[in-house]
């Protein structure tokens, strides 16, 4: 590749600006559509994950509700409750689990610091909740085993609670050690956390489960049990879900067909579903993008075929002057790849620019931060080069088959 090679490429590409422009446009449009759709898909994925994915995906949750069916002499439409004894029995009959956290909730709990107060979600939890809820600590520590044993009045507060109640500019470390009033009872702040991208997580206060149950619940009811499933496969968690549901229904006297009395929510299922949905979306995006690119590639193949036809004589002369078939093929492939790459990059830049431009205006619960990841961009460029070469092969072979004799014959 020296300057003459480039001059030849420019000459071919610029000899018919309209034709080249239209072909380039179809390539640019193909990449543009691919990039924008890919970015929107990524935005949808990010948004959905932020809204639903604030907990770990490898998780099962046990909850009770209202049993709908009469069973073993119990009336229909009765409240089913999970007591501490049930929770202990459940734990002891299960194999070892990577993480286990009891939860008790009190929504709309008033929290006060100094003269400031607000209404926040109160969660009594076990230490494992940090792992299960993927709590991102910003200062101090989370609820500990000793807190549980001693029913300490300690609290871990969310970023929004900190921002609302403490003076402007208070750093997380500075809040640790402060005393706050939770539902009128004094608690010591031992830690703070911040859940990026989670709107209501940050409006929560974590306290030890034992403390919360004693002070705020007046009973030994467990609202929910969260069980981490670690590295278990989706099939294993399905099996566990089924057997655990059966065991719980038997113990809590709920009809086997009752859908509401007690349920085990396998988050792995949801994660699997999301994975499949987004896998499908990605596949669809690439399929549409590839088809558009294919249409563009046909345009390039067409332009190269015309160029070869127009230059039959010139190619004959070049052969007489010592050009090998290889050098003729190389020239045509270079021209096609050049055309593809330039217009592809324009499409790539335009798409990236559009996504960046609209990103701030399209924040939504299910849509956030649309972006093109670097790998996809590289892949798109790779595909462009590949398609460029493919589209040039036909015309290049025709150029090679030109016999100098026929090309040079004067009419």
């Amino acid at each position, binding site marked *: 590749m*020296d*300057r*003459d090679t480039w001059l030849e490429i420019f*000459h071919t590409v610029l*000899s018919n600006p309209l034709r080249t422009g239209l072909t380039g446009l179809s390539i640019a449009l193909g990449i543009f559509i691919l990039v924008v759709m890919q970015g929107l898909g990524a935005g949808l994925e990010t948004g959905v994950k932020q809204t639903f994915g604030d907990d770990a995906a490898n998780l099962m949750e046990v909850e009770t509700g209202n049993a709908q069916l009469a069973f073993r002499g119990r009336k229909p439409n009765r409240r089913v409750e999970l007591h501490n004894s049930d929770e202990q029995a459940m734990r002891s009959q299960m194999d070892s689990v990577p993480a286990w956290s009891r939860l008790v909730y009190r929504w709309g709990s008033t929290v006060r610091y100094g003269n400031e107060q607000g209404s926040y979600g109160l969660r009594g939890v076990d230490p494992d909740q940090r792992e299960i809820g993927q709590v991102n600590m910003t200062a101090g520590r989370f609820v500990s085993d000793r807190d549980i044993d001693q029913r300490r009045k300690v609290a871990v507060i969310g970023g929004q609670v900190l921002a609302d109640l403490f003076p402007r500019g208070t750093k997380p470390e500075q809040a640790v050690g402060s005393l706050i009033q939770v539902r009128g009872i004094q608690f010591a702040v031992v830690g703070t956390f911040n859940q990026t991208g989670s709107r209501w997580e940050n409006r929560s206060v974590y306290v030890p489960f034992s403390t919360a149950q004693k002070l705020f619940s007046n009973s030994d009811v467990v609202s929910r049990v969260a069980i981490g499933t670690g590295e278990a496969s989706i099939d294993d968690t399905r099996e566990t879900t089924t057997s655990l549901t059966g065991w719980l229904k038997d113990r809590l006297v709920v009809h086997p067909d009752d859908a509401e009395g007690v349920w085990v929510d396998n988050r792995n299922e949801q994660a699997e579903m999301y994975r499949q949905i987004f896998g499908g979306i990605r596949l669809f995006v690439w399929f549409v993008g590839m088809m558009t690119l294919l249409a563009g590639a046909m345009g390039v193949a067409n332009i190269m075929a015309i160029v070869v036809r127009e230059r039959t*004589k*010139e190619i*004959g*002369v*070049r*052969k*007489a*002057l*010592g*050009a*090998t*078939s*290889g*050098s003729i093929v190389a020239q045509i492939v270079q021209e096609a790849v050049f055309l593809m790459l330039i217009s592809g990059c324009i499409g790539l830049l335009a798409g990236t620019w559009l996504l960046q431009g609209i990103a701030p205006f399209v924040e939504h619960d299910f849509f956030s931060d649309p972006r093109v990841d670097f790998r996809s961009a590289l892949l798109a460029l790779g595909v462009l080069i590949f398609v460029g070469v493919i589209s040039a092969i036909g015309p290049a072979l025709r150029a090679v088959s030109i*016999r*100098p*004799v026929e090309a*040079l*014959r*004067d009419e």
Partner: protein
Amino acid sequence: MIELKSIRKAYQTGSQSLTVLKGIDCTIEEGELVAIMGSSGSGKSTLLNVLGLLDDFDEGSYVLNGQNMDGLSEKAAARYRSDFLGFVFQSFNLISYKTALENVALPLYYQGVPRKERQARALSFLTKVGLADWAEHLPNQMSGGQKQRVAIARALITNPSVILADEPTGALDSVTSDEVMALLKEINGEGITIVVVTHENEIANQCDRIIRLKDGRIEGANA
């Protein structure tokens, strides 16, 4: 320099086979200026294409510069063309979007010569044909005679052993024709073998020897 023995060549047109060269025997010595004459259809263009390795032949043998040219691959033919042969065409066949200098330099591009050296050598050959001042002009800004001189410079730039000229004056008036022939004779004087295909007697008569073709056979040769 060139040795042809019983060269036969037939073209397949549909189901019919048309024999164009029916056994050509001839020898062209190094440094000769030879004219090939014949009416259209006599096979003179085909013979030139065979000589120029632009077309293959069916039977016989062709020795160029002591090397057998039998059954060459396309790649090998391209290399021999590039190393031994220079071409001059009736319609010049300059590349229209390249300047005179770039046209002259083109064969060196295919030999992988660096650009700077290509340009320098091209300029010296343009000077040789008297067109140094026209180096940056495009072919369509030049007269027919000038274009043919550029084409001759292009044929010379690889220092070929043989120059094959197909009706080099066919598109030129008589004055320019004489200029081009004078140039060819001058080059011949430097020891380069030249084969000129022509149908004009005045041109042929300026050559050392005339090979006359008729119906694919050599009619007779005179000195």
